[in-house]
Structure formats: structure tokens, C-alpha cells
């Protein structure tokens, strides 16, 4: 999970590593995700989130689709 300065540098970085592209967001969207994901981490009553609660944070920010699914889909 890395910062990049531009789309051009992202493409160059992916090519250099021989990696398939994953997912890209703006730093603004990342900041909102970080705020929602981590803000309770040091609170005295902290309890681990369920997978559904974590998924809801991603979904709420529009981070949807197979790439952002935290658990495997149920077998069909």
C-alpha cells in the first residue's frame, strides 16, 4: 500500500515490478478511509470489528467490487 506522485509513475512502478494493477484511489479518499478504519483503535473500549463491519466501511466509501471483498464469496 504505497503513495505515488502521478498516474505515470504508478504505471512505471507496476511495469518495473512486473505487477498487475490492483486498485488506486486519491489520497483524499485514503484519508477518509484511514479516519474511519483507525479512529477507534486507541479507545479504551476498543473491540475488534466483525468482517461485515469492516466491509461496510469499504462499501460506504465506494470501495466495492471483488477486489475490495474482505472474505471469499460463499461457495455456490
Amino acid at each position, binding site marked *: *500500500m*504505497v*503513495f*505515488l*506522485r*502521478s*498516474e505515470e*509513475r*504508478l504505471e*512505471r*512502478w507496476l511495469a*518495473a515490478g512486473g*505487477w*498487475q*494493477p*490492483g*486498485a*488506486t*484511489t*486519491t*489520497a*483524499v*479518499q*485514503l*484519508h477518509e*478511509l*484511514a*479516519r474511519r*478504519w*483507525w*479512529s477507534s*483503535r*486507541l479507545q*479504551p473500549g*476498543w*473491540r*475488534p*470489528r*466483525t*468482517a461485515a463491519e*469492516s466491509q461496510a466501511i*469499504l462499501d460506504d466509501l465506494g470501495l466495492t467490487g*471483488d*477486489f*475490495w*471483498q*474482505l*472474505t*471469499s464469496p460463499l461457495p455456490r
Partner: protein
Amino acid sequence: MTDTRQVDELDLRIRNRIYSSFVGSGDAPTPGGIAAELGMPEQEVDAAFRRLHDAHALVLWPGSTELRMLNPFSIAETPHRVRAGGRSWFANCAWDALGIPAALDADAQIASECADCAEPVELEVRDGRLVRGAELLWHVLVPARRWWDDIGFT
């Protein structure tokens, strides 16, 4: 993501003590230190460290009970340094770098780097808003369901 099935109330108490100790002192606590603070046998705390690792509530170095990550904080030095509240922290990744001000509920300056060119990048959070670094991109290589397969790489 933490697997809620694997931790009990005692584990959570130990986990909370680990975090408060680290944030208070800046030093990574050991099972022996936490055991002394809580008046518990070290063996029990040692086992709790391992359960918390297995539950993704913290990360240990392989084959030991030495702390590697207290997400979003990194115990080890990384390219992501966060200054907040007059102190300095290391984050595990770009996401965690912005997670530290969120966890501390504090303004922060983040010094990181572009993964491609290694040029420095700077971000700043003030009053809960990202006021510097908004032009940067964040890239995630690993699909979410595989983040914990190799959390160091993720």
C-alpha cells in the same frame, strides 16, 4: 481486519495494555513487561500475544513474541514517518501513515516517499482534514481478502 472469533476478554485486556504502553512510552512492550504490569504469569501473556497475532490484532516477528506491528503503528523503522503531538512514529504503509493521526486524534505531518521514484512526499492532517498531499495517489496491489496472507508485503 481482526478475526473476532479468536480473542477473549483477557486477550483484549492484554491487547489494550500493549497499545497504551506503546503509545505512552514509544517502546514496544514485551510479554514479560505486560505480565509484570498486570500481575500475571508471563507464560499466559506470551500465549495471549500469539493468539492476538493469530487474530490479526497485532503482528509478531516470525517464530517469536517480539512485536513487529501494532497497526497502524510500526515498531520497526519504515519509509513512512509520522510526527504528531510532538512525537514521531513509524507507520507500516501509506494507509497506516494516515491511520496514525486518526488513531491519536491529532494533527500530523507525514513524511513518506513515492514508491516509483523514491522522491519524498509530504502530507499533513489538520483538524481532521487532509491539508497537504491531496494530489497524491494511493495504490493497493493485493486484493482485500489476501491482505493477511503476507501482511508485510501488503
